[in-house]
């Protein structure tokens, strides 16, 4: 049986996630796949994603992942990363407005062309680099990770979650946005744990050891 299936829907660099998982969990069977049966056969699922949401959603629908993912999160731990997280929301403002999978209530919004911080300093978009994540709620995924640890982000759109009970991590960039959400067996993060050195590898290790019973 496959321990972790990393869903491959053809959107760029999905292999980083599998390499990082192999590093934290040597001996576990990690498979990068787009095959429905192989995904359903895995104990855990990682749903990564980079690139533009319209193209991502087109591939997600073509591979019928939009119907598969709601099933998966009922039955096993699922970790969504970056655009993977955004694709799980209701809709995104990117590419002139795109309907997404809608398993998490909320919208994906643009940071804007003139983003400023609390001191009125202009902020660059994309939000690129290492920013702090406030662990606003306790969750097994944060186990052993220092509060306010920095993770690597690269995105121009952010998640505005409708249900604040689902927010387990938040980050400040112009305003406060949802950096991590949870719902039953699902954890969704905006940052890239696979590129976030110690803190990121710790999070992936926590995911490998999480039974989703939260």
């Amino acid at each position, binding site marked *: 049986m496959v321990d972790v299936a990393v869903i491959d829907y053809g959107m760029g*660099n999905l292999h980083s996630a599998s*390499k990082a998982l192999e590093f934290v969990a040597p001996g576990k069977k990690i498979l990068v796949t787009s095959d429905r049966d192989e995904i359903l056969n895995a104990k855990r699922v990682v749903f990564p994603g*980079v690139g533009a949401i319209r193209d991502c959603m087109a591939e997600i629908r073509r591979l019928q992942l939009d119907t598969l993912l709601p099933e998966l999160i009922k039955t096993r731990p699922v970790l969504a990363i970056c655009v993977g997280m955004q694709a799980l929301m209701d809709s995104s403002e990117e590419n002139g407005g795109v309907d997404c999978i809608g398993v998490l209530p909320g919208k994906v919004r643009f940071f804007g062309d003139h983003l400023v911080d609390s001191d009125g300093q202009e902020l660059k978009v*994309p939000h*690129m*680099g290492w*920013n702090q994540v406030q662990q606003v709620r306790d969750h097994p995924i944060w186990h052993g990770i220092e509060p306010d640890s920095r993770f690597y982000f690269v995105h121009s759109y952010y998640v505005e979650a409708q249900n604040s009970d689902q927010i387990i991590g938040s980050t*400040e960039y112009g305003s406060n946005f949802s950096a991590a959400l949870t719902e039953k067996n699902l954890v969704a993060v905006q940052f890239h744990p*696979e590129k976030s050195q110690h803190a990121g590898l710790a999070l992936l290790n926590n995911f490998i050891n999480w039974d989703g019973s939260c």
Partner: protein
Amino acid sequence: MSLAKRIIPCLDVDKGRVVKGVKFVDIRDAGDPVEVAKRYDREGADEITFLDITASHEGRDTTIDMVKDIASQVFIPLTVGGGIRTVEDIRAMLNAGADKVGINTAAVHNPGFVTEAALRFGSQCIVVAIDAKRQGDHWEIFTHGGRKATGIDAIEWAKQMVVRGAGEILLTSMDRDGTRDGFDLGLTRAVSEAVSVPVIASGGVGNLQHLTDGVLQGKADAVLAASIFHFGEYTIEAAKKAMQSEGVEVRL
């Protein structure tokens, strides 16, 4: 709580080997890019940039193998620049595990290539590298590793590249590169203030104060340096502590 300014060591590689002498006492094979990348990762580098100077096309496959090796052991963002000319070049690097690619000469020959690349792979992985040299009251961009003048104004070019889809600008001052006199702060600031995307300052770092100046005076979002780190003169950790003591937000 805010975004940290990044410190990025840059390595020149030729046929999958580090060139321009990296000298660390704790590294057995300083030409081995995996060893060097691991060392920088341990010291707290925020990203690592590789400049591929491999001349032959066949030799470039070794660069892809190198990126694969590093990406399976070092879990911070990796950028590969040098010789990226086609969508296939980009795909090969991203599939190998690079997070971003640097495009320089090819963008000047065909600005549409940047648009095509950004649409295909997303702006987040497209870094446009600009080599600029002061000419009177403005800066002009150069290609072919700084050897060929283009007549194009650097600031206008940076703006155009962002419109085309660049997610980040790697800005090198040809006047300062290799001098150890510090970044061209006027150039860095002018470009950083002209574009909405992050700007990486490059060229001329000789000491740690230069890194701080690049951020505080040059308004750079990230600072790139090679020799001050390669010869063990300063560690990245020491650089971050020095910057922090001057009020720069860093990841420690």
